[in-house]
């Protein structure tokens, strides 16, 4: 099986019914994606599969054969040490959008997905996007704040880039 993970092609030899979560964590060493319940109830394992958020604990790896996966490790750009954090990642840190951080990786992927199609999300848009992501420490307001802050930053930098082209 072949899966493109965070832009990189990975060959996977695993039992077909192993979960994508298991393969990401155990075979590919991408432990940023978390296992909170193994039953699709908490969203800690959220990744993007062919451009849409899914619970990786509920996807058999064979279902992802040939697909493209983005995990939390694929949100920043540049790689260490020149890593550039995504505006969402910076905003989550600044706004205390998490405490223990165990839900954060999945939460970030859901918010990252939202910002692909909505550059100015309302509170309701954000809460709807994270309606499958459970946070026990903080709740969700600080996530709303962070996503709106990140969206504003992205809009500003997009506008800047357009002005430069013009």
């Amino acid at each position, binding site marked *: 099986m072949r899966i493109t993970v965070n832009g990189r092609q990975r060959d996977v030899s695993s039992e077909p019914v192993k979960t994508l979560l298991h393969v990401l964590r155990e075979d590919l060493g991408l432990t940023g994606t978390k296992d909170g319940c193994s039953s699709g*109830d908490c969203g800690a394992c959220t990744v993007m599969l062919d451009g849409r*958020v899914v*619970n990786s604990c*509920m996807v058999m790896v064979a279902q992802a054969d040939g697909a493209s996966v983005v995990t939390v490790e694929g949100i920043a750009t540049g790689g260490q040490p020149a890593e550039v954090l995504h505006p969402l990642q910076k905003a989550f840190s600044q706004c205390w959008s998490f405490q223990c951080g165990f839900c954060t990786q999945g939460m970030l992927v859901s918010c990252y997905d939202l910002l692909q199609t909505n550059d100015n999300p309302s509170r309701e848009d954000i809460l709807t996007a994270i309606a499958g*992501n459970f946070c026990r420490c903080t709740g969700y307001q600080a996530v709303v704040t962070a996503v709106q802050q990140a969206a504003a930053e992205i809009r500003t930098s997009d506008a800047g880039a357009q002005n430069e082209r013009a």
Partner: protein
Amino acid sequence: MNHPDYIAAESIQQALHLKQVHGEDAHVVAGGTDLILRMRDEILAPELLIDLRKISLDRISKHEGGMQLGAYVQIAQLLAHPVIKETYPALAEACRQFAGPPIRNRGTLGGNIINASPAADLLPPLMAYDASLVLESISGQREMPLDQFLQGPGQTRLAPNELLTRIMLPQILANSATSFIKLGHRRSMAIAIVNVCTRISLAKDGSVEQARVVLGSVAPTVIRSQESEARLKGQLLSEDLIEDCARLAADDATPISDVRASSEYRKRMVRVLVRRALTANQSELSGGIAGA
């Protein structure tokens, strides 16, 4: 958990052939969101998994005035479809309230039907819209109304060699209103305590030509309340009639008690929700604003 073989079928013929050969030992993978849990809990231990994702069963298209939906259509796809929202709004509403975004992106229409859960969110609207199912086997295909297909929790009339390939939604009569109401313990990621979907289609004289009163999570399968539907037929909608139908629907419900609610509460809620749903229908049909 057992270790089945896994084939992503390249064509419908291949999938049907595999079903013919392996029968109940072969299980179809659509979204897989329920299958994976049942396999982990060892409720299911198939020898072969047939993945349908490469077959084009994910189309939504118009068909003879109604719609034809592939069994592999995902919940999120239905939710985003403008014609569904316009023409079958109760189905769109059930999709909106279905689990959360990641599950909506994986879970399929066919999977929700085949699971045959009494609490399945999509079944009440599908039944209210008189959906029928296309079941195919290597020897041909048959079409069956959804309300005849469901036999019990997890039990259907799908033969071991058959696949559910399409769901047919007929054209809905002009002058119709539908309403879907889900009562759950929270607004997302909830299993219904009670689901209700009603549809009222009026004749030219304003009397009820067709009525569907569908109840979820209050019987071994999603059911139609025969009594209330019969009571509505040919009548003019009124507050008294609606109250009467709500009572009859509650009488038709045979719920169990579980961790989510007692059977008494569920029965009582059927009455409340059917009244609200029919009232919303009435309001919509009389030109008012539908509201639950």
